[in-house]
């Protein structure tokens, strides 16, 4: 306990902490509650479900639309993440380790793309992708995701790479290690946390995107989860399939929440690294 903090102080900050918890979890609890209500209770307006049922979970997995979207989302987000982090690693290494005139230019370009409005390019991309046959395909989404996450990845990785004692690899070389050994046993373990952090942030971005998915896909071939959920159609055209939407939302939200809770420190470090040091 910090010196000078009274009982009142402690209670005040405890209450604050609890309020933060309620703030963060209220909508999540609500969507979970909706997903577990039997269809007949969906409109009972109660925050806590009276009875529990898994019927909506069964419904979303019986329909072909949702499993396809989950598969598309995982595949597209994973490939975009791998590519973006790989390209960003090269660039960040050059920015941190090499003296060359383009450094400021590349960081500046990355920053301006971070501020770029994606809606400004969906029209041209839509037209271009139709001509090139990339419309409604995985590469058609991977390309924009990879590009729009590059700034985030480059900034995060540069911030992490700056902290690495690169001379350690020279020391290993002096001790008789080959360049490859020095790289594998010295540099890779040091760089891994930063790379991993950048990968989580990039994955969350790609997993979250709706605009590109809505504009550049049209069928189960490449439609990702956010677009699938937003365009979910129930059995009747005029009825919003609330229960199915809630169940699908829970299915795609829970894994991400778990990842975030487990890697909390890294995500915070990554999110603030680019902004504060930039």
């Amino acid at each position, binding site marked *: 306990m910090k010196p000078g903090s009274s009982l009142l102080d402690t209670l005040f900050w405890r209450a604050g902490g609890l309020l933060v918890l309620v703030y963060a979890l209220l909508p999540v609890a609500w969507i979970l509650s909706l997903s577990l209500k039997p269809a007949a209770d969906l409109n009972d307006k109660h925050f806590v479900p009276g009875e529990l049922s898994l019927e909506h979970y069964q419904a979303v997995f019986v329909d072909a639309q949702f499993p396809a979207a989950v598969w598309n989302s995982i595949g597209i987000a994973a490939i975009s993440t791998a590519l973006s982090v790989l390209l960003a690693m090269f660039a960040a290494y050059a920015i941190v380790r090499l003296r060359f005139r383009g450094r400021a230019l590349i960081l500046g370009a990355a920053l301006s793309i971070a501020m770029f409005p994606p*809606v400004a390019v969906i029209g041209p991309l839509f037209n271009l992708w139709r001509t090139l046959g990339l419309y409604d395909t995985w590469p058609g989404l991977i390309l924009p995701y990879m590009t729009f996450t590059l700034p985030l990845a480059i900034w995060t990785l540069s911030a992490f790479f700056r902290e690495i004692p690169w001379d350690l690899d020279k020391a290993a070389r002096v001790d008789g290690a080959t360049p490859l050994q020095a790289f594998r046993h010295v540099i890779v373990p040091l760089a891994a946390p930063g790379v991993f952090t950048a990968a989580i942030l990039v994955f969350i971005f790609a997993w979250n995107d709706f605009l590109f998915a809505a504009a550049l896909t049209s069928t189960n071939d490449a439609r990702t989860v956010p677009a699938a959920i937003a365009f979910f159609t129930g059995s009747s055209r005029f009825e919003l399939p609330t229960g199915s939407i809630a169940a699908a939302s829970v299915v795609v939200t829970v894994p991400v929440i778990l990842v975030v809770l487990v890697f909390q420190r890294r995500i915070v470090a990554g999110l603030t690294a680019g902004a504060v040091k930039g």
Partner: protein
Amino acid sequence: MSPRRDASEERFGWLLCTPAVLAMLLVTAYPILYALWLSLFRYDLRFPDQREYVGLANYASVLTSGVWWESLANTLIITAASVAIELVLGMLLALVMHRVLFLRRTVRASVLVPYAIITVVAALAWKFAFDPVTGFVNPWLGLEQAWLTERWSAFLVIIITEVWKTTPFMALLLLAGLTLVPQDLLDAARVDGANAAQRFFRVTLPLMRSAILVALLFRTLDAFRIFDTVFVQTRGAQGTETVSIVGYHALVTRLNLGLGSAVSVLIFICVIAIAALFVKGFRVSFAAGEES
């Protein structure tokens, strides 16, 4: 890091950066130039044969239409309201995260939940919460309000969703700035008899100026691009269209590439204008910081 600069190092540097630079040029610079080009044509994908050069006519029709100005006003209202609320709320969150000892890890981790949730999911959760048939908000408040069917109450729901989703990001940026404020400076102020409010407004806030400006810049530009929440909650009905929704409808729903591209270019110009204003703000702020 070696201080020397030689040609081979220069070449290697560029070589390593080329893939990233190419990707960024291919998917942003090229399309925006293409959009600039398309915006000079009458070009509707439903009538591709009627494509013809029309100069600035598309811009003229966008800029003289009420839709563009109304959507720009809507976007600015949503941006200003949500960023202002986020700044205050984010600062409170940052203070709690900074000071809380009880359940510290849980509190700090829970703040990341809104950040990690898919925006579409968050927008639907709040939409259902405010829904007069399904939601719990009306019974809790004792109201019978159809929130999303009227303009201002729809704005309220949209802003609440935006604030809920993005305040944690703001709070984390502010928390990073908060941890840079030296504790002994605050202790010294306390010894000198400054109360908590004075310590916050006279010591902490001035030292956080640059962290606050960075957070505001990021969030303002991000809020200006708002699309997902509005699309899911109202699809732009009830006069809640934002500029991104207008662009999307012109391009994807109506397949009018000429007009849609003109909207895209105008949005791009708005973003540059906002960024320029902030850069100017940074200069003023730093100049003021150096004087004092």
